[in-house]
């Protein structure tokens, strides 16, 4: 009987639309997962992340749980692609009884909406996919990143473009409505010009724009542009490729991990989704034990291969939090924060996570993906120095 009750409670709590927090069973380890699951282009990153996190929690529970048999209970809260909704979700999460940590979000703007509430409540918030390296500085000591920072991925892209592909001139397009995209452009331009490259033209737009015809015409009329760096989230990623290619422009398109979504192939179609390079979180090319274990488990659980690197990031985030709980030997948020900050070597699927003293952004390898006629392939993996 008790077992059935417990399973029922588990099912209720893990359901996506859990509208209220159930009183937790005393021995459970409560973790809140805040993701955009029902609205907007970010769902194509957030849903895989959430599935990855839930998979890891399930695997840990199946293997006997943590701290001598205590189970992880993941409460997923939908943040509905809305920063106000995200702040409300965070408020609800931190008021849950015995919450150990919060995880979630694939975008800096949304992480910034949630994390400060965790900071105030002195509960750690570990983001699985928000990549601004400034996040811990802006939020405080409860903020941890599982992915690399945007500086790392933008620098890797700039170096790859200039050194490997021999591109000397670029146009830079920026979605100026997102913290992620404005930061990414800044770091890309900084490294690309430092290498000797030139930014010939810059253009901006906002996340909700769907008509890029004016920008495309301007790009077309600018002489000598070698490539386009499109700093964009998943909402506009596919649309940009489609409209640039339909205008007959064949130049390479570069982007960050906001392009790691199937929309870049489905929206323009296989024929037009060509000559695109984007950076993302390494795991595709990694043939390590954890990476293979993840791939097999994901396929078994969800009946398909991981959609993108964000599935692996969600999985890693849950793993990292569980590792910190084990090292802390307690579910006290303060002890868990301390253990997280002291992470020296956690073997994640997307590369080893280590937080250097006082920093809460890991230095991890960057995968450079190449899209050819609708097929996304790993081109190379770049490991940042230092």
């Amino acid at each position: 009987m008790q077992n059935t009750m417990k399973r029922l409670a588990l099912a209720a709590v893990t359901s996506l639309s859990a509208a209220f927090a159930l009183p937790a069973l005393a021995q459970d380890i409560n973790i809140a997962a805040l993701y955009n699951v029902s609205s907007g282009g970010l769902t194509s990153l957030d849903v895989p992340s959430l599935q990855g996190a839930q998979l890891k929690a399930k695997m840990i529970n199946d293997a006997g749980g943590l701290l001598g048999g205590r189970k992880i209970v993941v409460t997923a809260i939908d943040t509905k692609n809305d920063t106000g909704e995200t702040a409300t979700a965070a408020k609800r999460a931190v008021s849950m009884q015995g919450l150990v940590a919060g995880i979630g979000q694939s975008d800096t703007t949304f992480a910034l909406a949630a994390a400060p509430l965790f900071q105030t409540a002195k509960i750690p918030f570990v983001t699985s996919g928000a990549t601004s390296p400034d996040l811990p500085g802006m939020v405080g000591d409860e903020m941890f990143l599982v992915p690399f920072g945007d500086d790392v991925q933008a620098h890797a892209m700039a170096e790859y473009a200039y050194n490997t592909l021999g591109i000397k001139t670029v146009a830079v397009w920026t979605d100026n409505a997102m913290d992620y995209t404005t930061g990414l452009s800044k770091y890309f331009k900084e490294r690309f010009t430092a290498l000797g490259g030139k930014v010939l033209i810059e253009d901006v737009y906002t996340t909700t724009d769907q008509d890029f015809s004016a920008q495309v015409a301007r790009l077309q009329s600018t002489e000598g542009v070698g490539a386009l760096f499109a700093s964009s989230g998943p909402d506009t990623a596919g649309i940009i490729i489609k409209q640039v290619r339909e205008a007959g422009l064949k130049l390479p398109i570069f982007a960050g991990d906001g392009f790691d979504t199937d929309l870049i192939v489905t929206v323009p179609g296989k024929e037009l989704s060509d000559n695109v390079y984007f950076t993302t979180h390494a795991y595709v090319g990694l043939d390590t034990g954890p990476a293979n274990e993840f791939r097999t488990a994901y396929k078994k659980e969800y009946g398909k291969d991981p959609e993108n690197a964000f599935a692996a990031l969600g999985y890693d985030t849950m793993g990292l939090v569980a590792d910190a709980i084990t090292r802390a030997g307690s579910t006290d948020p303060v002890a868990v924060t301390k253990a997280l900050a002291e992470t020296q070597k956690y073997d994640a699927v997307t590369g080893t996570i280590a937080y250097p003293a006082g920093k809460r952004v890991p230095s991890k390898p960057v995968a450079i993906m190449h899209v050819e006629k609708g097929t996304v392939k790993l081109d190379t993996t770049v490991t940042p120095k230092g």
Partner: protein
Amino acid sequence: MNGAYLLSQVANGLILGSMYALIAIGFSMIYGIVRLINFAHGDIFTIGAFATLASIAVIQAPFPVVLAIVLVVGAAVGLLIERAAFRPMRGAPQVTGFIASLAVSIIIENLAVLTVSAQPRTFAVPAYLNRLIPLGGLNVRMIDIAIVLLAIILMIALVLFVRFTKIGVAMRATAENYDVARLMGININRMIGIAFAIGSALAAVAGLMWGTKYGQISPLMGVLPGLKAFVAAVIGGVGSITGAVLGGYVLGMAEVLFVGLLPPEYSGYRNAFVFGALILVLLVMPNGILGRSTEQRA
């Protein structure tokens, strides 16, 4: 800046304007006949895009058939909304209808999010629509030409219908004065239903065009184009069909040229520009370009 660049921007404005014009017509027609700003109009545009997706993906209909299906679905949804939400409150103060239209809009959007999920979707477009047409150095696709031509054909047909057919005359009479029209034996409810059906069918076709051109549709895609078409209708003069068409083209052109001719750093403000233009028009020409001053009907 050279001629070819300017020409391609003008073409872009024309294409965008065609879609705005089609949506704006519905706003204007419905306002003209029931004095109602129907904020659910942008959602009918969304329904049109999803009807396109469904008829291509599920029954693999050829494109002309898809067009017919979308027209019918749009008209049916328009009629349904009118019957369910607006007819019961006929005669209520204007603000009631306005609030009801907001409610309908929110219901449609949330139903869409619940049923089809908010993940952006794509649909396969027949290859011939994506063929490149050389047009004096312009890079134009078949779909672009189809959008402009189809919009113009539909608009001419509508103007002829309203001007010369018996139903058209009856609709205009209804817009002029309910009581006198009723005395002439005109079925007011039927005329209002027709206005909703035609306006909604055109918005649904605009949704088809938008989805085919930009390749990505989602339940909330209609919000911004819907609001912009409302701006277009106001610019042209709410209540006037030719005004709505004119407003649509003026707005589409102005929006593209705003992005295309000003320095790139202003491109991000295109929506601010559109709604700024709305305020300006309301201040300078409260009745729009072709609108008549609308005295309150007794």
